[in-house]
């Protein structure tokens, strides 16, 4: 859904400089509405593990790799509970993490982590994936669906 508003004033006012100090930041965090507060909690303190017992063996292996590599820098709850779900989003996200100094994620490992996260999202975040795809352009929907299908074709038991 797009919200369109007309503004007639010139100044949008400090939108890039979203500046708050540490003290002020905490004060604002305490004033967050319940929904936002829950979202913040979920991102940083939500579940940090996933039940992969029903995933294909290769994907289970990639989950181990994901757990090992990604937990070097941040909690696993962060990617697990994030709102990234589509192949394109994960691809960009993982590349960014690979380039972090000392990440030690090779291109081959990055691909495995990508495949795990896309596969996992297609199951665990299915509702979110479906929602995003429903509102995407038909050809973009097809592109994303084919990438997801490709992974399932590759790893699901025949």
């Amino acid at each position, binding site marked *: 859904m797009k919200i369109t508003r007309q503004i007639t004033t010139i100044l949008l006012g400090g939108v890039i400089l979203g500046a*708050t100090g*540490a003290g002020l*930041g905490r004060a604002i965090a305490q004033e967050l509405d319940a929904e936002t507060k829950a979202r913040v909690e979920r991102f940083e303190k939500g579940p940090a593990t996933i039940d992969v017992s029903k995933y294909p063996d290769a994907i289970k292996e990639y989950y181990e790799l994901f757990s090992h590599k990604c937990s070097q820098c941040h909690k696993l709850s962060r990617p697990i509970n994030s*709102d990234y779900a589509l192949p394109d*989003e994960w691809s960009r996200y993982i590349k960014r993490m690979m380039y972090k100094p000392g990440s030690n994620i090779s291109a081959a490992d990055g691909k495995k982590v990508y495949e795990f996260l896309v596969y996992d999202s297609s199951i665990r975040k299915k509702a979110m994936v479906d929602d995003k795809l429903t509102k995407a352009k038909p050809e973009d929907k097809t592109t994303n669906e084919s990438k997801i299908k490709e992974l399932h074709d590759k790893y699901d038991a025949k």
Partner: protein
Amino acid sequence: MPTTYPVELPDVNYFTRQVLCREGCPVRTDSGGYVQAVAEERYEDAYIIARIPNPFASICGRVCAAPCEAKCRRGALDAPVSIRALKRFVCEKFGVESDAFDLGRVYPQLRDPRRERIGGGRKVAIIGAGPAGMSCAHELALMGFAPTVFEAQNLAGGMLMLGVPEYRLPREIIRAEIAAIEALGVEVRLNTRLGKDFAFSDLKKQGYEAVFLGIGAHKSRELSIEGVQLDGVLRAIEFLLNVNLGFRVTLGRKVVVIGGGNVAFDVARSVVRQAEKFAGMGEAELREALHQAASALEQLTARQPEAPDEVRLALDVAREAIRKGVPEVHMYCLESLDEIPGAHDEIEEAEKEGIRLHTRFGPRRILGSDGKVTGIELVKASRVFDENRRFNPQFIEGSEETVHCDTVVLAIGQSADLSWIRPEDKLKVTPRGTLQTDAATMATSRPDVFAGGDVAFGPRIIITAVAEGKKAAASIAKFLTGSVPAEPRQARVTIYDTLQYGMKPDYEKFIRRPPPTLPLDRRIGIAEVERDYPEPDARRQADRCLKCHVGPVFNGDACILCGGCADVCPEYCLRLVDVASLRGDAKLQAAYLARYGRVPERGEEGAIIKDETRCIRCGLCAIRCPTGAITMERVELIPA
């Protein structure tokens, strides 16, 4: 010394400035807007976006030097979006060259009843029907003036018609663009030359209250070296003019073109076509071609007894034009490949066609025997520009080389013919041989006379001439009516649902592909070389656009300083910094006072800053933000 960051607090102007293609276009065409419309298959919308600010949209779709592409943000990542070729794509569907063209659909978008009342039918004379003059007339007509265009030639279009080769710009498109402008109420009088058919002072007597001079620069500059007078030395503009008027020019078997700009490339590529045309002809066809050239020459000389000597000489040569075989065409220019002012795709196409480019050479003298060119002596240049980037070529003595050839074409610049000016006209001329013109207002030394295009500032690209014509129209309106109301604008902000926002999958991996071109063996005569993109290719190229209209907007009140946005940004354009490290203007100080009530000390407050040059509008930061403090928003200025 701690690192500091120069920052700017964004306002509407800041956001509109981020659309770099629009900023790069002299008429502020919203190139990104029509590129995005192509991606969304809204082709007619795309055409209208391209057409509103530019009465020569279809022409620019083919031959614009595309300053928008030079600015395109995508260029910093890999290669700019093919903006010009995409403009051509939509113009082919809805522009003047298409069957679907309907002025009735475009005109309502151009019309503004508030502007139409400004002119009150007052008469304005426009001298020259080139892009500057016709654009000025177009704007004046939309403001309710009665513009009359006086054109010396028997056709309108100026250098578009006379200087741009037909293989780049089909003539029917120029005619159609001119016709669309005439349909707005512009009168064009052909074969009416200033200084011959009327004097400048006559215009006032005929009731014209202001004048715009857009007569172009149709003379080639001279080169002061030995041998320039030899038979076989041609001037570029005269050469192109003759070719484009349909006359034949004798060239011989080996041609050397001196110069490196677009004009030089046009000459070199036209030479190849002339040669090919004649090479395939039998004796009877050659006789017929000569006969036609002679007839055309008779007509032109009868109509233009005052034609400059260079034109007459070139036309005389055309009468005798018989050539056999394909000549070798060599281009010598002072600049290195990096410095060469010609467009790079032109260089590539010229080289494909067999033109051999030699860089860092300057002409020393032209050699001849019995009054005819036999060769040219060139000297190697060690540099072209000095440390202050001023044109100051240095040559390597002893590096002279002689190249044998039959023809030398000098493409070293153009100048305006201002011989018609009389003292009583009170028009001042600059030492460069241009009309003294104020770049901000297009005003000349006479209050009721304005100028633009090549005659005002020397040779320039088409879209700059269009912009100057439009600017002059606004100045003329102001001069005649006292003031012109500013076009009211308001900002429109579209906020995207973060979880639905997304760019095209893999868009950053799409590579720039040029539009297809005619196979080399079919590049004969006037056949247009560049073709249009097939539709799927056009949409894929349009999907490369980074959508600079859209960007992440940060709400400081909702930010909890988690740094997640900076953490995930794939292009490293976000950074969480100490407020004390920011450097800004009075607006920044005012923002401090508004937010904190004082200027914060080091270590007290934090800020997110963004490097706009890198942002690819992927939206990862917004998706990552746990509090929804970041939203992807599209900011546009639209008519109020």
